[in-house]
Every structure is written in structure tokens, then in C-alpha cells.
């Protein structure tokens, strides 16, 4: 079995995102989006059961490749990346188009992703990839049970949850908390250094998506309130009571 996991390199999420001409500024050193760790973990659990090969697919500026390395350190076997200036600020459809082309090249049966990236969070890429590849999309998977006969995926729904048996070929999106991502140990980190990272030229892919979203501008809004602040000396609850009365909640 072949599994592909889409993983994104993002700017350090602890730092506020900044924009240039409407595009997220991407420093040389980008890290693996934590959201993708769930997808990689699921792939590794399936690999343990089915003896699969796990390929990381990533699109974006290469930079130091730290994020891709982090994905390989977790235990993925190899990576395929597309890095082209023309893709800077790509919309979700273009991203999905490129990633589904990579998925075809990887010959993956299963394509696994997080539900949305931390920096862009459009939340549409897994579903778009499934449509490009004409596969079922098992979206919002929040629990996974691997037993001797099959893999059972629990989907989050608006009303609660539901289960499906994992099809042989499909796209899966995993929510945070769906699985517990592993931490690589020293051996894994060393092993990752010799894993293959293959760069695929954009020209080799059938890119049909267009740049239909035009940036207009970014407007600053004053949203900071900095209201009254009270340091508790044992009586601060009285301020709350007062407010509750003022707001006619009490």
C-alpha cells in the first residue's frame, strides 16, 4: 500500500503572520504545521499495520526545508515537493490542484491531510483533492481504530459523530486530537537526514486552476478594548457581581 500525506511548511506560528501584497510572508526557515502531524501520525499507524510506504507531499518555497525534515523525522519514508515562484500566494484550488498531481505521481492509494492549515485555514484542500482524483473524501476524522480486519474512522459531524470503514482508496482529513502524534527520537532524527526529497518541476504537472482571487487591501481595525483591570485581592468577585447587575443579568 502507498500512502501520501500532504504537509505544509509554515512560518513559526508563535509569531503573528505578516503580509506582503496580500500574501503571507514566508521566511527562509519554516516549520511543519502542527496540524499535519496528525495526518502523518495516522499514516504511520497504518504503515505499521499494512507495511505501507509513506510519502510526504509539500508545496511552497523550499527555504531550509526544516518543515519537510520534521515530517521525515516522524517516520515518513520520503518526500516530493513542488517549489515554484509562480505559486507564491496560491489560492486553495491551485494548492489542491498541485497536490493532487503530486499524489498521482506518488501512486498513493490513501491521501491524508489535516483539516485546515494553521496559517491559511481555508479548510477546503482535502475535499478539493478528492474531487480532482475522483475519490471519496472521509473528512473530519476524529478517531481511528485499527483492528485485525479493518480500519474504522469516526467522523465529526454537526450533530455528533458517525463511523465508516476506511475504503481502499480515498482522501482522509484528520482533526486535531484524532490521533496522538509521536515525537521523533534521536535515531529517527538522524535517519531522516538520508531520506530522499525529490523536487518536481511545476512544468511536469497539469495545472489548470486559475488565480481567480485578487487581493484588494488589508485594513487595520482597532479591536483592542483594554477595559477595566482589577487585581484580585480576595474581593474581585464583587466587581463581577456589580457588572452582572449593571448588565441586568442579575
Amino acid at each position, binding site marked *: 500500500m502507498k500512502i501520501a500525506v500532504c504537509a505544509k511548511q509554515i512560518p513559526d506560528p508563535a509569531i*503573528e*503572520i505578516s503580509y506582503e501584497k*496580500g500574501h503571507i510572508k514566508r521566511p527562509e526557515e519554516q516549520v511543519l504545521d502542527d496540524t499535519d502531524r496528525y495526518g502523518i501520525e495516522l499514516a504511520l499507524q497504518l504503515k505499521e499495520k499494512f507495511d505501507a510506504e509513506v510519502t510526504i507531499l509539500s508545496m511552497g518555497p523550499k527555504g531550509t526545508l526544516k518543515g519537510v525534515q520534521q515530517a521525515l523525522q516522524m517516520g515518513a519514508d520520503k518526500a516530493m515537493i513542488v517549489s515554484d515562484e509562480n505559486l507564491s500566494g496560491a489560492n*486553495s*484550488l491551485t494548492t*489542491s490542484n498541485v497536490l493532487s498531481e503530486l499524489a498521482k505521481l506518488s501512486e498513493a492509494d490513501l491521501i491524508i491531510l489535516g483539516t*485546515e492549515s494553521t496559517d491559511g*485555514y481555508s479548510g*477546503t484542500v482535502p*475535499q*478539493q483533492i*478528492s*474531487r*480532482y482524483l475522483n475519490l*471519496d*473524501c*472521509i*473528512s*473530519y476524522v476524529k478517531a481511528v481504530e485499527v483492528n485485525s480486519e479493518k480500519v474504522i474512522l469516526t*467522523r*465529526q459531524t*454537526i*450533530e*455528533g*459523530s*458517525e*463511523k*465508516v*470503514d476506511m*475504503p481502499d482508496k*480515498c482522501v482522509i482529513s484528520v*482533526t*486535531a486530537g484524532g490521533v496522538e502524534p509521536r515525537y521523533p527520537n534521536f535515531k529517527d532524527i538522524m535517519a531522516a537526514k538520508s531520506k530522499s526529497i525529490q523536487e518536481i518541476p511545476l512544468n511536469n504537472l497539469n495545472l*489548470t*486552476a*486559475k488565480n*481567480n*482571487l*485578487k487581493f*484588494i487591501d*488589508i*485594513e*487595520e*481595525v482597532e*479591536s*483592542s478594548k*483594554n*477595559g*477595566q*483591570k482589577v*487585581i*484580585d485581592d480576595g474581593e*474581585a*468577585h464583587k466587581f*463581577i*457581581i456589580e*457588572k*452582572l447587575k449593571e*448588565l441586568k*443579568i442579575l
Partner: protein
Amino acid sequence: MKALIISEVIDGKLGLGSLEIISKVRNLNIEFQLVTVGVDDVPTIGSDSFKQTYLKRSSNSLQYNKVADYINNIIQNEQVNLVLASSTYQCRDIISFLSVDFNSSPVSNVIDFSIENHKVQTVNSINGGNQLYKTEVDSEVSFLLIRPKSFEAVDIELNSNYISIDVEDGITKIYDIHKEEKKGPQLEDSKVVVSAGRGMVDVSNLSIINELASKLNAAVGGTRAIVDAGWMPYSQQVGQTGKTVKPDLYIACGISGATQHQVGMKDSKFIIAINKDEEAPIFQISDLGIVGDTLNILPKLIESI
């Protein structure tokens, strides 16, 4: 401009998000119709004031691909050029599928939109609401996913005036459907919300939150940190990947105020925050900030109500 609003039907009712979108579309004087998706046999979701197609799916088959195929036909036959849906799970799936069909990238997390010179312009809230990002959509068919609570919902008289179509089963079977029990005030429509974060220290202390909420007739919410930790079901998560709330009063107990949390609650009319860290970002958006220990303050507060 001709719009199509996609809505799910839950417990025989129109999704709240679609009622919000209808009000916006009416304000802009855009001609529109609905396509709804649900499992009920004959829900009361129709209206004499707009056309609607109800796609009835079966609860035990994954059919969103097929649902999208039907909607694809409607878009073409009715010459729709603006497709709108609330960013719910189902609608995210459906809009994503359609965006591939029509080769038109959708705009996600939209909080407002307008039509300028026959083009759709959208507004997104970024960096925890400190900035508004504006986009123009240059497509024959534009797809927008709208954040819930972006517009005031309309109140419409509903009947059974719609066309109903049964959607055929997909390949993947669904089983073990679990409905989370809904008890007490719900996050979406409560005037008061009491929310907990990791600063409640232990899951057992959520009893304090529940007691406060019941005294204030409030709904209970939480951060993703505690939902991921299993303290609360996902349905109670407030924020970017959870629910958006706009109550009269939001009480944040032991919540740091990460931008992803703020997105879901910062438009509450009045915000009270309790946090022991004076520098916690939640205080920047609070009307009343109490610097102190939740476990000391909340019991005293409950006592004095």
C-alpha cells in the same frame, strides 16, 4: 447576479447560517434560491418567497459527492453566479467539490461581502480580528464560505413549498451514528456564555463552570485546548475551528485568548476575563479583566449570586 444558498437541514430545520445569509442577500437585493441537504422526509423548510430544492440523502451513506453533482446541475441550469454557504462541515465539503467542477477557488471564512461593478468582493477577518483582508473574486461562478454569526438571521414563515429529490447512495457506508445530547442553553443562541480554558486546571473543576452557568442561565463553552484534552465535547468549542458566539456577556475563565479563540467570541457585547497572568492576550479584548486565580474567584462569585 443570481445567488444559490446551500444549507443543511438539521432536526427538520433550516441551518441557522443560511437564515443569516438570506438576510444579507436580501439586503443586497440579489435574486436567490436555496438548495438544502438533509435526511428528514418532509421537513418544514420551504417558503413562498424563494425557490428551493431539497436534496434528501440517506443517513447511512456518504453522499456529498453526489449531492455536489446535483447542485452542479442547478448552478448550470439556473445560471447561478454566486454560491453561498455557512462554513459548516457539510457545506465545506460541498463547496470544495463544486469549486473544482467550476475551476473557481472559493473564499473561506468570509465575514462580509458586497457586489461592486458586477464582481463579488469579500472581507475576511485575520490576525484575531485586528485586520480585515479584502478580496475580489474574478470567476464566472463565485463560491463563498461564510462564518456563522456574520449577519443577523431573518425570521421567515416556513411551509413545505420546495422540490424534493432523493439522492442515490454513495459507495461508502455510514454506521454507528451518534447524536450528542443537547441539554440546557445552547451556545448559538444564549445571551450569556461561560467558557473554560486550561486555567480551570483540572476537568473536575468544570463543575464550578457548570454551576455558574446554571445560575446565570448561560451556555457553556471551552477552548480547543480543553476539548482536545477530552474535558468537553467538540460541540462546545468556541473559536476558529469551533463555534462563533456573540452573546450579551461572555465570561472567559482561565483562557489565554489565542487569536484562534478570539475569532469565535471577540464580538460578544461584554467580555469578562479571569486569568492569573496579567499579560494574557484575553485582557486586550476584555471589558472587565480580573487578574487572579479562577479557583479562588469563581466559588466566591457563585456564592454571592
